[in-house]
């Protein structure tokens, strides 16, 4: 890794410290009467863009050929317990960090007019949230990870509870308690892991890479895996743990929804990839079929429920349940296509669902309602917004040439190699997603203007352009040049699959052996598969 001038710069630390310091500095800007709102908005936007620039630098200097963690920084934090400030990036976390930093300025832009009171505090919470989210993705120490994981809840709680819609307090508390209930059991499992490490080696350690190599009895693995998986399943959210999501998404302000859907949900799936599966491979192999069944149920259930929602935001929220089901399915397949597809789908979903919430938020800012029946025929009133929404809608459906397709395709490919039965259900989900999204699009934008209030709605304002264009552009870029994003994550995905697959102890009993064999199954080379995707994308994109 040639860093050049950046050799001595703790680039990765800066990527989360910049927003945090920005938030703390903002706290000291006096703004009691709201007279400095404008300046505060610009300042926080500048901070978030600076942080985005830093993550782009990370991407620039990232060595895509290596599967190792890069930009590693390690400082002892609580030495008595082997706790370090230990961070690093691999191909899987790199792009999620970039996504986080990419969506934060957009979230700030989306709230430019929607948020009028307590602007300073709003910006402080958004930036603090960004810092914590990036922290979650870069932590290589379980203790550090847990700190970020829990700390992140606080700003999100306030964002929903203060700036949300009518049911905001209920939604905020539900969000907080659900997530905490899952994560505290994970805390116990983390402590248990550290204790096992001290039994094996004589010293406590929360170092993820050391814990990967720990030999854990299958029975213990099972409990620990369940504790981790529950925390992440609630966050994803996997059916049947999804009930907090519609409330939180619908009640959150637009910026909150964008970040919630764009980044927070990915923490659950990221956690499965980074922690639950590789730490407990035996248990993971055992439970993967069950989790995959829940994922497929979620795909179909989310789609069906989305179809009948009268509220656009709720529709998008349930569509997230469906899309995240795909991601979990890809992870459960635990082969290179599945993992790459899952990570790709996380990014794609972040962009497209972020975009959907953004534009629904614009409509709701204008009309103060999100009911589909209140709209209709908007295409003639606001053609530009319609165009942007169409791009994002198609991306979300998984139209070839846009970002959603690549992820879903890879996931289904991976799942097919694992067990074709799951793909049948997932395929149904793809069809249903086209139904609910296009139906909603049709009812809102096509036809004639039925409601007089909609006749004079303004089209996209410059500030809204600034938020929508990057998302639309990203949807297209990710659809046309997937290799740009797939390449850096490929070595890491391969390594992960090896790690999870190869550490299976060979069992004598039949059923288990079969499952393990499935886990071990890997393609000799993934390159042809990927170029296949590329060709398919190119062919259908035209």
């Amino acid at each position, binding site marked *: 890794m040639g860093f050049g001038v950046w050799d001595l710069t703790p680039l990765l630390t800066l990527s989360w410290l910049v927003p945090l310091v920005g938030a703390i500095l903002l706290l000291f800007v006096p703004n009691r009467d709201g007279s400095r709102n404008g300046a505060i908005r610009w300042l926080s936007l500048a901070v978030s863009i600076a942080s985005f620039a830093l993550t782009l630098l990370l991407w620039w200097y990232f060595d895509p050929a290596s599967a190792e963690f890069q930009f590693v920084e390690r400082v002892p934090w609580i030495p008595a317990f082997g706790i370090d400030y230990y961070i690093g990036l691999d191909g899987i976390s790199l792009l999620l960090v970039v996504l986080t930093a990419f969506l934060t300025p957009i979230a700030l832009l989306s709230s430019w007019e929607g948020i009028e009171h307590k602007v300073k505090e709003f910006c402080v919470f958004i930036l603090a949230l960004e810092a914590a989210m990036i922290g979650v993705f870069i932590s290589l120490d379980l203790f550090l990870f847990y700190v970020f994981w829990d700390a992140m809840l606080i700003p999100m709680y306030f964002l929903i509870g203060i700036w949300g819609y009518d049911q905001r307090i209920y939604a905020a508390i539900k969000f907080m308690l659900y997530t*905490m209930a899952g994560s505290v059991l994970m805390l116990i499992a983390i*402590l248990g892991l550290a204790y096992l490490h001290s039994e094996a080696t004589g010293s406590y350690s929360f170092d993820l890479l050391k814990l990967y190599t720990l030999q854990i009895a299958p029975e213990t693995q099972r409990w620990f895996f369940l504790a981790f998986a529950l925390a992440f399943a609630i966050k994803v959210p996997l059916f049947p743990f999804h009930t907090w999501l519609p409330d939180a998404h619908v009640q959150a302000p637009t910026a909150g929804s964008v970040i919630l859907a764009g980044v927070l949900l990915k923490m659950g799936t990221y956690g499965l990839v980074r922690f639950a599966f590789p730490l407990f491979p035996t248990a993971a192999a055992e439970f993967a079929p069950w989790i995959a069944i829940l994922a497929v149920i979620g795909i179909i259930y989310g789609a069906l429920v989305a179809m009948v929602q009268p509220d656009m935001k709720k529709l998008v929220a349930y569509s997230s349940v469906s899309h995240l089901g795909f991601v979990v399915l890809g992870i459960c397949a635990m082969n290179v296509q599945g993992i790459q597809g899952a990570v790709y789908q996380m990014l794609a979903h972040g962009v497209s669902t972020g975009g959907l919430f953004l534009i629904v938020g614009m409509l709701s800012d204008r009309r103060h309602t999100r009911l589909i029946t209140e709209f209709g025929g908007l295409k003639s009133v606001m053609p530009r917004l319609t165009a942007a929404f169409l791009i994002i809608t198609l991306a979300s459906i998984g139209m070839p040439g846009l970002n959603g397709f690549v992820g879903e395709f890879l996931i289904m490919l991976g799942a097919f190699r694992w067990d074709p039965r799951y793909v049948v259900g997932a395929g149904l989900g793809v069809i249903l997603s086209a139904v609910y999204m296009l139906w909603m699009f049709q009812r809102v934008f096509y036809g004639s203007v039925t409601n007089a209030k909609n006749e004079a709605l303004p089209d996209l304002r410059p500030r809204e352009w600034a938020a929508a264009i990057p998302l639309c552009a990203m949807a297209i870029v990710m659809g046309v040049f997937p290799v740009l994003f797939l390449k850096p994550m490929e070595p890491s995905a391969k390594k992960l699959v090896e790690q999870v697959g190869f550490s299976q102890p060979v069992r004598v009993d039949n059923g288990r052996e079969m499952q393990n064999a499935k886990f071990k199954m890997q393609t000799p080379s993934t390159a042809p598969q990927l170029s296949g995707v590329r060709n398919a994308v190119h062919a259908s994109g035209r």
Partner: protein
Amino acid sequence: MFNTDLDALIPMLCVTLTALATMGTEAFRGRSERLPIGWWGLIGLGGAAFAGALLWNRNAVGYGVIVADNFGLFVTFVLIVVGALTIMFSSQVVDRDGIPAGDYYALVLFSIVGMIMMATATDLLVIFVALEILSLAVYVLTGVRRDSPKGTEAAFKYFLLGAFSSAFFLYGIAFTYGVAGSTRLEAIGSFLSAQALSNNPMILLAVGLLLVGFAFKISAVPFHMWTPDAYEGAPAIVTGFMSTGVKVAAFAAFTRVFLSTFEPFSTEWAPLVAWLAAATMILGTVVGVAQSNLKRMLAYSSIAHGGYLLVGLVAANSVGKAAILFYLLAYSVTNLAAFGVIALLGGRDRDNDELRDYAGLWHTRPALAALMTVCLLSLGGLPPTAGFIGKWYIFSAAVSAGYYWLAIIGVLTSVVSVFFYLRVVVMMYMADREAGLPAPVTVPRLGMAALMVAIVAIVYLGVLPTRVLDFAAESIATIF
């Protein structure tokens, strides 16, 4: 220092002298003269802290019954912090509520003397005397507002039940003496470990009675009945003081007696204490959910925190012992700060301690609301605060001692507790102020300074706990 038996007593003497000075000042004060009597106390506590620092690592023994070992000194430091913060919070609260300042500060200081004595005593009878010194002072403090019927009722209840539990404690001492022939902890310990007495009903009865005595003072379920009433009736700052100081002192003595002297019987009492811990955590949080009075809610929360501390006591490994010390510090600072906010917001005619009094506090007093939020998050155990590190430490002790079930109950109850802490946050940030409620008072500067100190400590302990963790581990290493 002087290498006499007095060395170990110097921290206590400092506080006692200033307590006497406080009384003297009050006696010779003119009728309308106002004196900053509280400063006496701060000076005394500063002296005690200085003496404690000089005594560090020296294991000074005073008359064979008081030992200034590192464990005792760590607890002494915690108590000094508690005392100093209490006095700072009290500065204008006392004037506002018409509490006689001289009596008030003297009682606070005397009870601190009792607490320090309890933490450093190595003789059961001296522990009892210390317990009575601190209890008597705290009974009076509970009812210090003589015009308040609620306060009087609280003090009376507290006194009656406290006297009752003292009897249990004394009875336990008597039985212990009957078996071991001594009240010195060291002598009892060596006697017990030398003889196989685990089936001796006398000693089991003694252990049980002492357990009841301690359980009452730390308000463990089912000996918690007095707590909500006493905490609600007392002035907010007194509640803060007794919910931290008394608990710290009682836990110090509890730890010393049960983890060193009665260590040979740990197989007998550990399951019992484990159940106490579970019941305390569960009842404290579950009943806390239903409260609409903030003081009462924090009373139940402090019961629950006693439960977490008991988990540390059960998991009596090297981690657990240090975890108790760290948790005591984290809990004291946090809880005292939370009660400090309540005290600062109180009015002369009205306590302003109902949940709805906090509605919209963010709009009227943003700084206080933010600081209160930090306290509540720390009590709930969310990072990056002291409460999180404390809970993490306690639960890792439980896990490494094999008490997974206690740890699971602990984390689940802390999620439930977050629910009621958040109700206050919801009120402060997300609700609008009801019409007709009095506007919040101006906040005294010294109280605000105390609050800032506490908050800085909470965040410091949450982000960079290493130094204090090592300190706690070091102080526990010397005696157990």
